[in-house]
C-alpha cells in the first residue's frame, strides 16, 4: 500500500550512489526484501517506471531477491521456514524459536554505466 514512498526512497538512494560513482546510467538495481516486509514487487515496478522517467535510472531493471522467513528452534536445533498459521517448531512444538531472516529491506547493489574506459585509472 505504501509502495510509492518506498519506490521514491529506492530512487533517491540509487541516484545518490550512482552520482557519487560518476555513473551516466543505472542499468540494474538489486533489492533484498524479506518475507515479513510487506512490499508488492509489481507496484514498485509500476511506480518506478513513472518516477524514474527523465533520470539516469530511467529504464533500469529492478531485481527483487525475496528472502523467506527462516526460523531456528533453540530447543531441538531445527532450522525451518515460517509457515502461515504455524509458527512453533514443527519438530518439538516449542515456541522458543528465533527468526534468522525475513526482516530485510535494503538495496544490495547497482549495475551502472560510466564514461570511463576500462583502461583509464583516474581516482
Amino acid at each position, binding site marked *: *500500500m*505504501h509502495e510509492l*514512498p*518506498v519506490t521514491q*526512497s*529506492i530512487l*533517491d*538512494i*540509487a541516484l545518490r*550512489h*550512482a552520482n557519487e*560513482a560518476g*555513473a551516466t546510467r543505472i*542499468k540494474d538495481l538489486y*533489492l533484498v526484501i524479506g518475507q*515479513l*516486509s*510487506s512490499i508488492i514487487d509489481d507496484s514498485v515496478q509500476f511506480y518506478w517506471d513513472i518516477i524514474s522517467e527523465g533520470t539516469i535510472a530511467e529504464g533500469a531493471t529492478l531485481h527483487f531477491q525475496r528472502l523467506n*522467513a527462516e*526460523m531456528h528452534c533453540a530447543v531441538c536445533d531445527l532450522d525451518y521456514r*515460517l509457515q*502461515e*498459521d504455524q*509458527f*512453533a517448531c514443527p519438530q518439538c512444538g516449542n*515456541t*522458543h*524459536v528465533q*527468526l534468522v531472516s*525475513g*526482516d530485510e*529491506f*535494503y*538495496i*544490495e*547493489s*547497482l*549495475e*551502472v*554505466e*560510466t564514461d*570511463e*574506459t*576500462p583502461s583509464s585509472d583516474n581516482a
Partner: protein
Amino acid sequence: MSKTIPVVEKILSANDELSEVNRSRFDAARVFAMNFMASPGAGKTSVIEQTLKRLGDDLRLGVIEGDIATTIDAERVQEAGAMAVQINTGGNCHLEAYMIRDALSQLSLDELDMLVVENVGNLVCPANFKLGTHKNVLIASVPEGDDKPYKYPGMYRGVDVLILNKTDLLPYIKFNMDYFREGVEILNPGLTTFPVSCHTGEGFDAWIAWLREQAEAMRSQS
C-alpha cells in the same frame, strides 16, 4: 564501461534519519512518546480517552492524530482533555517521520510529559515507518480474531508493547488466547502485554502504572 556499485543501504533510511531527529526533540523536552498502531476500529482513540481519564493532572498527555481525512478523533481526545494536533494524510495509509516533524511545530513539547501518536488504522504499513517515538504500541482487539499475529507478522514483530483491547467481548467471541499468545511470543518474545477493556476499565491500572514508570524514567534522565 559497466560496473557494480555495492550499496547495502536500507530502503527507508531517509525516514529513519528523520525519525532520529524527532527522537532527539522528544528527548530534549523529556517527553515520553508512543506510536499507537492498530487496525481500524481496534480502539486506539478509546484507549487514549480512557488513559486521559485515569492519568490525573500531574502527567500531561499530548496527542497527534493521524487520519486519512476528518478531525473526529482529534476532537474526541480534545474533549477528553488532551492537547491535540490532527494530521490528515490525504490518502496515505501510514504516518511518516516528516509528518510528525511538521505536526510538532503546532505542539509545545515543553508543556507535555507524554505524547501519543495515533497512526492511521492499518496493520501492514505503519510498522515500516519509524516516527522517532520511544515505544511502538500495538493495539489489538478481541473481535479481530486470534490469528492476527500469524497474518501480520511484520507488525507484531516491530512493536514494544501490546494492548489487547475489548476483553469484555471474550465471552461472546471465539478467541483462543493460547493460540494468539503463541504467535506473539514467537515473533516478539517476552513482549509486554496489557489486556484491557475500554468499556469495563479492566486492565487499565496496570497500563497506567507502566505509563507512569516510563514518564518518570524520562523525567529523571540527566
